[in-house]
Structure formats: structure tokens, C-alpha cells
């Protein structure tokens, strides 16, 4: 291999490096060739001494990506590092695919945790803002509970059944023994059901028409300020915990990857040492 071929191969392999960095490296090797020629050696001899330009470029790229990730820890830069190490032919493709999938999962988990954290913060913030400034108004569901309680205990005894001319029905059913009650409204357009469970809370809401249906079970609309505060704090704790876990995992993964990369670069150094 002569100088021109060596430089060309190096230049091609370093095409994705920033221009300034690439030019600096090329200039270094051109200088080396000049000095070698001045000392009376042949181009082929110098090129052989410098080693395989492809391998040299792969190592330079890997070092470049690692330095860039250490400078700015973005996900894109991390992927570049994984790619560069894989490009050195040392982390094989079969290993890289599940690893990238794992990174993707980690990202998703981090996003989900952020969402939960934000939800908790909004709930908590709303409550705190209401407490301090009386705004925004928080509709506690005591009214709903009260109506349901009145409905279950007072009023005329017995169940109510109303039948309309076009097949509309309204049924109010109460079970005094268990405290359960329900309202069921049905017409040709659809149905609406409300069920009250034994603990005086709204237990189930169902709305149905030809286009679809909404069915919410296990409702407890008796969410008080305390309940909101607890839910908010719980969501915040969950989100923060999740994020922290993701951070630990990411840091651990990164350290492992970096150690692996350095180990592989070390193997390269050693392999070259043996070529002497």
C-alpha cells in the first residue's frame, strides 16, 4: 500500500467524523509519511509500520463517540457509541439487537415515570394552589355522596318502575338490607346505569348507545382533600422512584458499556503491541 492509498482509505473510513478532526488526523499521518520518506524509507514500508487504516479508523471513531457521549449524554450519542463498538466487530450484532431493545425499554420506562410524576405534581400543585389562593375550585364529591345517601335511606319506600310509550324504562331499585341501590334508564337511543355500592360510594357508571359504551367500575367518587393529597403524593413517589430506578439502571448500563468498550480498545492496543 502506498501513501495515497493509505490516506484515501483512512479518509473514507473517517467520513463521519467532523471535518476539522478528520483533517487533523489526516495531516498527522501525512506528516509522518513526509518524515519517513525524508529518512529514506519507502511509502509501502511506512504504511506497513502504521498498520491497517480501516482498523485505525474504527478505533478513532469509537474513541470519538465515547468522548462525545461523555461530553453530552444524549440518547443519540449513546446509540452512536454502541454502533461504533459494534462496528469494531467486537460486540456482535446478535448481542447489539437485544441491547438496543433494552435501551428502548429503559427510555419508555423513564418516559412513563416522568408522566406519573407530572400527574402527581399536577394533583398536588392544584391542591396546594387551592389551599393557598382558593383557586382553582375543587369539587369534592360530598354532594354526590349525600344525594346517594338520602336516596338510599329516605324517600318513598319500595322500588320505582316507570314505563314509557316507546319502550322507555326508568327503574330505581333499592335494597335496604345491603344498602345497594341502582338507577337504570333505558330508551331506544341507549342506556345509562348508575349503581351505588354498600359503602355509600358510586360503585359503577355505565353509559351505552349504538356507537359504543363507557363502563367504569370500582368507582369511589368520595375522593376528599385527603384522598387527593394522598393520591398526589403516591403518584409523585411512584414517578420519582421509577425515574430514580431508571437513572440507576442507565448509569449502571453506561458504566458497563464503557468498561466493555475500554476493554475492547485495550485488546486492540495489545493486539497491535504483538504486531511489533
Amino acid at each position: 500500500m502506498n501513501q495515497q492509498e493509505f490516506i484515501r482509505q483512512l479518509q473514507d473510513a473517517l467520513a463521519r467524523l467532523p471535518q476539522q478532526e478528520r483533517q487533523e488526523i489526516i495531516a498527522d499521518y501525512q506528516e509522518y509519511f513526509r518524515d519517513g520518506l525524508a529518512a529514506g524509507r519507502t511509502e509501502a514500508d511506512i504504511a506497513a509500520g502504521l498498520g491497517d487504516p480501516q482498523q485505525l479508523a474504527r478505533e478513532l471513531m469509537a474513541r470519538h463517540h465515547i468522548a462525545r457521549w461523555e461530553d453530552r449524554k444524549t440518547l443519540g450519542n449513546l446509540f452512536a457509541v454502541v454502533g461504533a463498538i459494534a462496528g469494531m466487530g467486537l460486540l456482535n450484532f446478535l448481542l447489539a439487537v437485544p441491547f438496543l431493545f433494552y435501551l428502548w425499554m429503559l427510555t419508555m420506562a423513564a418516559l412513563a415515570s416522568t408522566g406519573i410524576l407530572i400527574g402527581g405534581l399536577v394533583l398536588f400543585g392544584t391542591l396546594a394552589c387551592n389551599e393557598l389562593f382558593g383557586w382553582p375550585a375543587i369539587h369534592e364529591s360530598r354532594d354526590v355522596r349525600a344525594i346517594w345517601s338520602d336516596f338510599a335511606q329516605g324517600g318513598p319506600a319500595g322500588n320505582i318502575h316507570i314505563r314509557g310509550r316507546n319502550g322507555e324504562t326508568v327503574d330505581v331499585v333499592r335494597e335496604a338490607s345491603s344498602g345497594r341501590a341502582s338507577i337504570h334508564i333505558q330508551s331506544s337511543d341507549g342506556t345509562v346505569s348508575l349503581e351505588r355500592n354498600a359503602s355509600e360510594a358510586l360503585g359503577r357508571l355505565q353509559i351505552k348507545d349504538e356507537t359504543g359504551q363507557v363502563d367504569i367500575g370500582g368507582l369511589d367518587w368520595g375522593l376528599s382533600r385527603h384522598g387527593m393529597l394522598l393520591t398526589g403524593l403516591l403518584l409523585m413517589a411512584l414517578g420519582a422512584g421509577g425515574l430514580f430506578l431508571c437513572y440507576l439502571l442507565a448509569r449502571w448500563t453506561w458504566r458497563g458499556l464503557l468498561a466493555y468498550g475500554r476493554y475492547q480498545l485495550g485488546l486492540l492496543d495489545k493486539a497491535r503491541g504483538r504486531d511489533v
Partner: protein
Amino acid sequence: MKTQLKKGTLDMCVLAALAAGDSYAYELVSILSRSMEVSEGTMYPLMRRLQAEAWVSTYLVESASGPSRKYYTLTAEGRRQLSLMQQEWQEFVGDVNSVLQLAAGRATGETA
């Protein structure tokens, strides 16, 4: 064994060569290869690593004929690192020598 030893000490040798005076890549290889075997291919990756550690810095010197040449010079941190490495090296060599002398003494004692 020799390769492993050399790999660990090559940094120190390059720093020591630079402590004697600023130099450029080809000259560094020539200086080192007077006393030891060095692969030319290792020199640039090694110099980039030393630069990244901020142990050496570079400057360009215009030449009358042709393009400028890149010189490497030791930084203050590089000088500090070199004396640290030298100290460790001397201690290590001293330790190994005393063990070797002990072994040699026992061997002559047994033959006598």
C-alpha cells in the same frame, strides 16, 4: 510478559522523551526505537490519548519547505504525572530486584 510490561510503561517513556525536549511523532518513534521496539502504529493513538488526558499539548511549527509540523510538549500536569510514574517505576524495580537477589543468594547458598 515483555509486551504487557511495555504497554504499561510506554506512556512513561513517551513522557520522559518529551521531558528532554519538545518533539514530533516521527522523531519520538526514532528516539524510543533506539532503545526499545515500538510499533509505529501505536504512536498516534497514544499521543491522542495523552492529549485527551491533558498531559501533552501541541503546537505547529512552520517549516521553510512544505507544510508545518506538529510538535508535542509536556504540560505541567504531564510533568507531575511523569514524576509520579517514575517514582512508582523505581519502587517496583527495587522490589523486583531485591526478590531476584534473594532468590539468587539462596541458589548460590544451595550449590555451595
